[in-house]
């Protein structure tokens, strides 16, 4: 993107005319005008006007990878907190183990963390998640940090560039949940450094040229480069 400011908009701000543009995410139409619903960054994509949230609760989308914390074991599955306005249901059939009815507690219990994928969301925003996908496990060890869900795309970078960058300079394992929870595993020093980098990305998420600055930061105190 060229040297143009990212424009911050507030709720009720008029963004454009409904005749020339279409109302995208985070906007609504009233009296022929497209109006912002929330505090966010203006994004005009061909003929759609979108507002990307700056802050706010995680809004799940089917297919998102998330990290959740088990709230309760029921007889046929679990209720998992994925930072959304209400807990998601993880069915006994949707885990990599063979769970018999009533035995859910044997596999996952209150407080356990899992990696999962959002399977479906109905009209009432009741969510189902699944662990039957590539590389989804119960989390053992490592460190989970929380960031603002709206900053996740910046932490991942374009096609995972930012994560690839961190992995290149620091020896660690990272799983970024779209819900703002990030799991980092490695030795203590590496975790510490990854946390520092992620904090920097989070606080400067709405600036340009971030990837280059992060790379410089990583290069400065890199021990060895992992390709």
């Amino acid at each position: 993107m060229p040297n143009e400011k990212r424009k911050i908009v507030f709720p009720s701000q008029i963004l454009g005319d409904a005749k020339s543009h279409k109302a995208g995410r985070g906007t609504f139409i009233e009296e022929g005008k497209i109006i912002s619903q929330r505090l966010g960054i203006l994004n005009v994509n061909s003929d759609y006007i979108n507002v990307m949230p700056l802050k706010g609760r995680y809004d799940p989308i089917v297919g998102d990878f998330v990290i959740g914390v088990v709230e309760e074991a029921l007889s046929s599955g679990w209720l998992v907190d994925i930072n959304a306005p209400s807990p998601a249901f993880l069915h006994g059939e949707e885990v990599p183990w063979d769970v018999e009815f009533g035995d859910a507690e044997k596999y996952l219990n209150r407080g356990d963390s899992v990696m999962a994928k959002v399977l479906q969301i109905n009209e009432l925003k009741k969510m189902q998640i699944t662990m039957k996908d590539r590389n989804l496990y119960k989390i053992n060890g490592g460190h989970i940090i929380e960031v603002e869900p709206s900053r996740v795309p910046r932490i991942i970078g374009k096609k995972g560039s930012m994560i690839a960058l961190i992995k290149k300079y620091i020896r660690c394992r990272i799983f970024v949940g779209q819900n703002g929870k990030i799991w980092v595993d490695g030795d203590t020093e590496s975790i510490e450094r990854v946390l520092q980098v992620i904090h920097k990305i989070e606080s400067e998420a709405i600036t340009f040229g971030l990837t280059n600055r992060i790379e410089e930061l990583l290069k400065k105190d890199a021990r060895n480069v992992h390709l």
Partner: protein
Amino acid sequence: MKSDKKLIDDAGKRLDGRGPEELRKIKIEVGVLHRASGSCYLEWGGNKVMVAVYGPREAIPRHTQNLLRAIVNARYNMAAFSVEDRKRPGPDRRSKEISKVISEALEKVILTEQFPRASIDVNIEVLDAEAGTRCAGLTAAGVALADAGIPMKDIPVACSAGKIEGRVVLDLGKEEDNLGDADLPIAISPRTNEILLLQMDGHLTLEEFNKALDFAIKGCNAVSEIQKKAILDKYQSVEVVE
């Protein structure tokens, strides 16, 4: 209440030197609390109000949940030290009423249908009171909701007008509220000028009422600009242009 105190001098100036259509000084700070989803600190004349917004989160107890939309719980509370005599802490009839009317006003602007079964909790804490705390509280709540990233149709804003010594004036101060003839706090959605809250205490003729309403709406629009500026200032300062 009768008093000999003159609320308006011969030159038309009020006790604190304001003209009839002048607001008290307003200062708004956004995002002052770390644990809350959104927060706001507001000073309006001698009023000091802190608002914290939590959620949308699962509504508890479960029977309060609405299957189709989020519920909005505003809780207005005055600190024991906010008034001259100590205020007995805890909810009383007055603060329960204000909590209810503010909840209903906020519910009208928030897009609650996006969060079925959730609750949005708004805690309004009055630290220092000097007339018009419900307006100050609601105005701060609007900013805190925007700061929390909650989708809404508009940023609600409130302001009061009233009558002192037979004259309609904007934004009553403490003595004016106590010794004046009427007080009319309103909240509006500034984009459309729709009324979200309207209360009246004292007597106004229809003509005076229309004039006071007109004043209050003008006041609301002026406060709305301050709200928007505060929000933009907070988030634009993060920006680094390269």
